[in-house]
């Protein structure tokens, strides 16, 4: 990476130690993963058990068939003492068995597997587009801090963060689908089986997700650039004859990009929330629609499974963020 050699002096690690650093990181992330899944899973476990009365009755409604009731109790693991139930459930989860979905008559894991593609498509597309927008805007902003565009962006970014994505989705549908009839208001085509046909259906949902995300990234990147600009090494760069835009593009931006990675990680939960709503508005058959459906049908094993799965994704995303830190920036110490 361009700017690293001129970064503020830090004791440099020999590349030989990198392997060790990454192993330590993996180990700690694995430990975090277990803690997070345990906390999240336990929380979900007890939420279900806290339902007043018999959860099986609550799920099936009044006057259930006795056989049905017994089956459901069995499926939910409601026999035995609370502690017995807890450890039985824990043992199941550890072996990767998330149980059977009540409404889909299939294992929770395979139901999730069938619905994961649209959600990942939305998440990856919107995050990478927002990332590019933020970098482009900030590059321009750094090179021309007094330009009209820069000033406009400074005012617009906080506004972008204030727009609820469900509202902007509805506005897009109203304008581009109902009034202008340019784009479909719902429906989803698999991006991998039909890349061209999938685009019209993806434009509106992805744009709705991009507004808030790109605003957030732009704000974070701007702050990061400002703090990078005050480092002394830039004086060296300027004194050796680099122009202001060369300094910005070759030194400031590469170094300033780091915090965005962190934000991508911590923003994950917000992104998932956004995707759940966007999927329900645009009728996209992803994990969000699956979750909302599971809530309506009170399919507890499925709700529990999706929750654990999302927590797992969160940890993985943050692991990737951390790993990319150690790969991109040699001065990052695992502390």
């Amino acid at each position: 990476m361009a700017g690293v050699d001129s970064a503020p002096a830090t004791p440099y690690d020999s590349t030989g130690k990198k392997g060790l650093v990454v192993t330590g990181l993996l180990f700690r992330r694995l430990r975090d993963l277990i803690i997070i899944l345990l906390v999240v899973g336990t929380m979900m476990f007890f939420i279900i058990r806290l339902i007043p009365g018999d959860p099986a009755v609550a799920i099936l409604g009044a006057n259930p068939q006795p056989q049905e009731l017994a089956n459901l109790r069995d499926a939910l693991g409601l026999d035995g003492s609370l502690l017995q139930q807890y450890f039985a459930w824990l043992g199941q989860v550890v072996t990767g068995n998330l149980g059977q979905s009540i409404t889909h008559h299939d294992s929770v894991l395979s139901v999730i597997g069938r619905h994961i593609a649209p959600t990942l498509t939305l998440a990856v597309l919107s995050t990478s587009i927002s990332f590019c927008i933020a970098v482009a805007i900030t590059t321009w902003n750094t090179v021309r801090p007094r330009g009209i565009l820069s000033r406009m962006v400074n005012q617009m970014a906080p506004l972008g963060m204030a727009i609820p994505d469900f509202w902007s989705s509805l506005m897009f549908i109203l304008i581009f689908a109902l009034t202008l009839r340019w784009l479909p208001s719902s429906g989803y085509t698999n991006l991998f089986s039909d890349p061209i046909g999938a685009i019209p259906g993806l434009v509106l949902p992805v744009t709705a997700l991009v507004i808030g995300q790109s605003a957030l990234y732009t704000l974070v990147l701007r702050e990061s650039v400002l703090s990078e600009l005050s480092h002394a090494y830039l004086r060296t760069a300027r004194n050796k004859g680099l122009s202001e835009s060369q300094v910005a593009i070759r030194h400031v931006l590469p170094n300033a990009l780091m915090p965005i990675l962190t934000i991508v990680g911590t923003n994950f939960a917000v992104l998932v929330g956004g995707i759940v709503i966007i999927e329900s508005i645009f009728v996209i058959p992803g994990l969000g629609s699956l979750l909302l459906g599971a809530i309506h049908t009170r399919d507890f094993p499925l709700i529990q499974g999706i929750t654990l799965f999302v927590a797992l994704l969160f940890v993985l995303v943050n692991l990737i963020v951390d790993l990319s830190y150690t790969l991109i920036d040699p001065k990052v110490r695992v502390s």
Partner: protein
Amino acid sequence: MTSPVLEPVAELAAPSRGSLSHRLRRAVRRNRVLTVGTLLLGLIVVMVIVLPFFLPSSTATDPANRLLAPSGEHLLGTDLYGRDVLSRLVEGGRASLGMAVLITLCAGTAGMMIGMISGYFRAADAILMRVMDAWMAFPGIILATALAVAFGASMWTVLTALSVIFTPFVARVIRSRVLGVATKSFIEAARVSGMGRWKILFVHIFPNVLPLAVVQVIILAAAAMLIDGALSFLGLGIAPPTPTWGNMIAEGRAYMHDAPWLVIVPGLAIIMCVYLFNLVGASLRLVVDPRSRTLSELQRLRARGQGPRRRQANDADGAEPRTGELKQPAEPIDERI
């Protein structure tokens, strides 16, 4: 993490000094954004509290006059049942703003306690912060939906879910500030004089982290409004007929093509409040957080054209740089939402 050693540099580098109340007063005088933002936000709160006494009832249905466009009689039109949209908007503001305030109060208090204990008692830190990380992994919307399914959608389930979700965001920020404050010499002095650890925590550390907590809570209020709106929109928050801005949008959705104001108006209300919360929070952060103050000063200078190049010229003359206060407290960016 904060690098406590550099804290004094930040203090020195701060372009304005003086006590917090002094800085606050000066900020109000100088910072028009903060003043205008706070006034507007205050105005909205007063309107939401007072207007229902003067407007037509928000529950009175009038089927003959349903889906009327905005007019002199109904300033923002009427909805599906002929109810006045303006009345419902104001009434919904009570629920939406009230929820945001309640959530931030709960999350702010819990986060403050956890952050202070975690930052000061190193033994508790490892466990508490791991649990906080786990909480942050939990998308608020999923916890809220789980609670709503288990106990029925209501104000309480949303309040519980969102307070739990937002607590770690406050706790992390407070913790990093406590880590910095705890190394200051006045804390050392208090300890040497025989003050108990809990007393030090509440008498000396609490007042030092309170301003930052307030700022964090205001920014949280913005996030809380957005998520609360989303939950009401999904029908997992406060249920109709009680209006909230979120469920008004959900109700208007089916008639969007014929009566777009049903969706546009409550959406604009959410945007305005969230924007104002963010604006006020960001401007207040400049008052209490030396680091963001330095950054904003730098931003202003760059925008005015007294960027690094000028400073460099000054350096070359051997003179003290005029804008030399802008030395960077080299804290890495972290612990922010």
